[in-house]
């Protein structure tokens, strides 16, 4: 019993930075989990990845102007992300290019600018920090940002839930009742950017996508209702965060990849065994119908 306490509880009791990191993970899970789920349902799973790259030049500009300052880098990242989303949206609307291709084009442009800026102005250490973050270095300001973003995300999602689901499901019907599908889509993309920005201090721009997508994809394998998936996505994200932190503490691993790897293990396990879409349950059911 004492051993389990030392393993699972003591690190959080003994160290404030671990508690802060855990609180950060909870807030991140509450915001990113649901956003990831909507990305999966709207068949935009790779969009999160694209947007995370798009955020980079903004964060770099923020860094150049204000140093390693969270508000500046976050604001820069948000502006860059929204700019890419708006430009890609306009390109989709006014040309024959499909949305995924437009996003690919604009995020690559953005990424190239970002790498250029970082390599001209910062050291490799800074670049590593922007790309990979450090949840163990989360300070009060970052915690406010992450929990503020999570709150805004949940409130906004509650408002745009119905039109957004209908827009994925049956876009022409939504048009026929006079609702503008594109408006909700744009609001949603802003939430995606917001959550990536909030994740990058803790996990870095690259790993933030992991906590967004892996729990969401895992959730789809476990439940057949949106409510069930939401609960599952948030839970998997938070448990991954906690387990990742502990792994990183006990084995001196970088926290970001540790968290994402735990989420990845959840995913691999679910891929095989999850009841609502896993490979083995499906295989067994197929066999059953055969006999």
């Amino acid at each position: 019993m004492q051993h389990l306490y030392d393993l699972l509880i003591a690190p959080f009791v003994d160290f404030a930075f671990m508690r802060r990191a855990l609180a950060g993970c909870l807030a991140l899970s509450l915001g990113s989990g649901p956003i990831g789920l909507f990305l999966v349902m709207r068949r935009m799973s790779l969009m999160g990845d694209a947007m995370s790259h798009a955020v980079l030049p903004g964060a770099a500009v923020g860094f150049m102007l204000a140093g390693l300052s969270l508000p500046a880098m976050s604001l820069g990242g948000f502006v860059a992300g929204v700019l890419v989303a708006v430009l890609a949206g306009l390109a989709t609307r006014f040309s024959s290019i499909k949305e995924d291709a437009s996003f690919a084009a604009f995020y690559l442009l953005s990424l190239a600018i970002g790498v250029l800026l970082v390599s001209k102005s910062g050291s490799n250490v800074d670049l590593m920090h922007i790309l990979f973050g450090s949840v163990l270095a989360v300070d009060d300001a970052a915690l406010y940002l992450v929990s503020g973003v999570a709150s805004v995300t949940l409130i906004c999602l509650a408002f745009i839930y119905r039109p957004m689901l209908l827009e994925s499901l049956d876009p022409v019907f939504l048009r026929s009742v006079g609702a503008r599908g594109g408006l909700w889509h744009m609001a949603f993309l802003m939430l995606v950017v917001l959550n990536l920005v909030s994740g990058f201090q803790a996990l870095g721009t690259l790993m933030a996508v992991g906590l967004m997508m892996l729990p969401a994809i895992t959730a789809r394998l476990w439940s057949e209702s949106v409510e069930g998936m939401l609960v599952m996505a948030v839970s998997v994200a938070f448990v991954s965060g906690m387990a990742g932190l502990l792994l990183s503490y006990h084995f001196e691993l970088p926290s970001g990849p540790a968290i994402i790897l735990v989420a990845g293990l959840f995913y691999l396990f679910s891929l095989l065994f999850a009841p609502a879409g896993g490979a083995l349950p499906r295989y067994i059911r197929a066999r059953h119908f055969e006999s």
Partner: protein
Amino acid sequence: MTVILDNLTVSYQRHPAVHHVSGSFVAGDATAIFGPNGAGKSTLLKAMIGALTPDSGQARLEGFARQDIAYLPQQSEIDRSLPVSVLDLVASGLWHRTGPFGKVGRAGLGQAMDALEQVGLADFAPRAISALSSGQFQRVLFARILLQDARLILLDEPFTAMDAKTTFDLLELVRRWKEEGRTIIAVLHDYEQVRAYFPHTLLLAREVVAWGRTEQVLTDANLKRAVDTAAHWQDRAAVCRVDGVNV
């Protein structure tokens, strides 16, 4: 209360799909839109609900407000992999009362159940829409139209790939709507269905081939003309020198 098409042209990347169509639908009755593939039938419906913007001309739904219009999309335009229950999908027919945020409420869900009962799927309310056959799903979409209680009903290929029983049941709903004085406009491919249930027909081949009483429109000569027009679509569409005049 009329639906008027005024010199309507809609195109995809400058290739017109609906070309200078003018005329009006008879209010309070059922009109079929009939024509070969690629004739612009679905495009016409989408332009009427405002989902496509016309290049020129307009579709005027005079006397119909937004909430008076119900639209049945083609099934291929609906993503049925999403985890939505049958009851929730039907309840989306209450959009005009709930809007994006409003509560559906117990009364609303009761009405949705009632509509499901009328299409014979009351037991399916809690099921996921991905678990339905295409015939059952079409019944669900008709239940949503029942809930919308609209005076103008637009149906895009409602009976394509439906079995005889489903088609019959849903056509009976159309007959009922007609008796209730609603205006119905449906894209159809079955000659017999049109003759049996739709007193008026618009025969479309990008342009109006004929428009009027079904028995006067669906003549051999007109149908041949529609097919012949379709056969020449490989060529570039004629350039209109003066807007509204075919030269």
